[in-house]
């Protein structure tokens, strides 16, 4: 009898907790301010500990990585040596090409970040959870960083700021699929919306008018249309596949990001906010 009563109470407790979780998910889905504030406060409190722990654990982490990723490191080392040799030869050619590229970017209207101020930051930690969709930067609101500001590397857009503490900020990576970005295909009038697929450096673009000629190898950059949280012309990546649905008059594309999201060390936060 007592066991049955205990079982009944247990079921009620579990049901109430489940309902509470659903309530929290609903509040978060509707963009509840207090939850964001609490997350920022926790970030501010924990970030000094995280920074110190990263420094202290660094030698042990390196040993751990070399133990579990030795084979990968060997392969990577060989690839890097090859690449290094090739790059040495490319430097001369690139210096000429760079100048041409700058001219080309100006011609098609891609000044990258242009005159918009940026804050240079260091990546201090990766994801706490196992669904690696965020990184932590070593600067925050005291440097002028605010939520939703775009984050770039020298190669292109990598994500946007989702939480800000006084001296820390958290960036949701573009590849994670947590948000969408409007893009345009350079050299065409095609525009669409891209979202991460959860795998590194891979995006899927949709809602493209199929009458627009989009080809593999074309460059996707942020469209910066009205209301977009991103400024126009931040390079995103290269289009690697195009699929057209004639019935729906819509094309979808696969985009390979320019920026390498593995082993990010530095990133720039673009101090840009949408007008209005």
């Amino acid at each position, binding site marked *: 009898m007592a066991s049955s009563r205990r079982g009944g109470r247990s079921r009620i407790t579990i049901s109430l907790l489940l309902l509470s979780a659903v309530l929290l*998910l609903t509040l978060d889905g509707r963009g509840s301010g207090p939850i964001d504030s609490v*997350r920022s406060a926790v970030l501010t409190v924990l970030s000094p500990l995280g920074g*110190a722990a990263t420094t202290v654990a660094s030698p042990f982490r390196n040993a*751990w990585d070399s133990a579990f990723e030795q084979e990968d490191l060997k392969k990577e080392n060989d690839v890097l040596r090859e690449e290094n040799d090739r790059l040495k030869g490319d430097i001369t050619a690139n210096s000429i090409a760079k100048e041409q590229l700058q001219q080309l970017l100006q011609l098609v209207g891609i000044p990258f970040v242009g005159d918009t101020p940026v804050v240079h930051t260091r990546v201090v930690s990766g994801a706490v959870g196992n*669904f690696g969709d*965020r990184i932590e930067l070593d600067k925050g609101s005291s440097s002028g960083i605010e939520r939703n500001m775009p984050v770039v590397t020298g190669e292109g857009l990598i994500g946007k700021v989702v939480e800000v503490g006084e001296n820390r900020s958290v960036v949701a990576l573009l590849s*994670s699929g*947590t948000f969408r970005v409007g893009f345009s295909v350079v050299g065409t009038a095609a525009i669409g919306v891209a979202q991460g697929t959860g795998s590194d450096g891979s995006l899927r673009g949709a809602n493209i008018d199929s009458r627009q000629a989009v080809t593999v190898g074309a460059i996707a950059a942020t469209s910066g249309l009205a209301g977009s949280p991103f400024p126009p012309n931040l390079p995103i990546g290269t289009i690697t596949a195009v699929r057209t649905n004639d019935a729906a008059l819509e094309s979808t594309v696969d985009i390979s990001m320019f920026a390498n999201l593995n082993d990010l060390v530095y990133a720039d936060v673009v101090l840009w906010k949408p007008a209005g």
Partner: protein
Amino acid sequence: MDHPAIRYVVVVATAVFLQYTLITQFRIAGVSADLFLVVAIAAGIVAGSERGAVVGFVCGLCLDLLVVTPFGLGAVSGLVSGVVAGSLEGATIYAARWMTAGIAFVASGVGILTFAITGALLGRPDLLSFHVLTVMAVVGASSALLVFPAVRVCRWADPEARLPRAAVR
């Protein structure tokens, strides 16, 4: 300090500290152990599914504060892990170390799958990719190892808890 709730607060706070500062630094295939799940599972094993659910819910909320996935996903995942661990432990006839490790492996796997499926239902289809299998394997294996010290800690937090086994109920 004698009340189990206070002791559990200390346990969960320690788990937050260790997860944030230490555990996430050591990864296999990009995946680290999940102390929040381990504590939830250990509480379920020590004191049954109800206690496992409560501790798992609180641990999950702590995880939710540290990640950018929808707030509440971690709570659901922790809750489910705690309940599964408590139910499986309660259904066993005798105790064995391999069984405790097995329960931890299964409960953490169920918790992660719950996280991914609920996330996908809430508009994050990327969470339900093949990466989930890697996460389940690595977190499951690490939970199976870490559950033993965690069970000791939970016994310290909850000394009165004695989960009746199926054979003696």
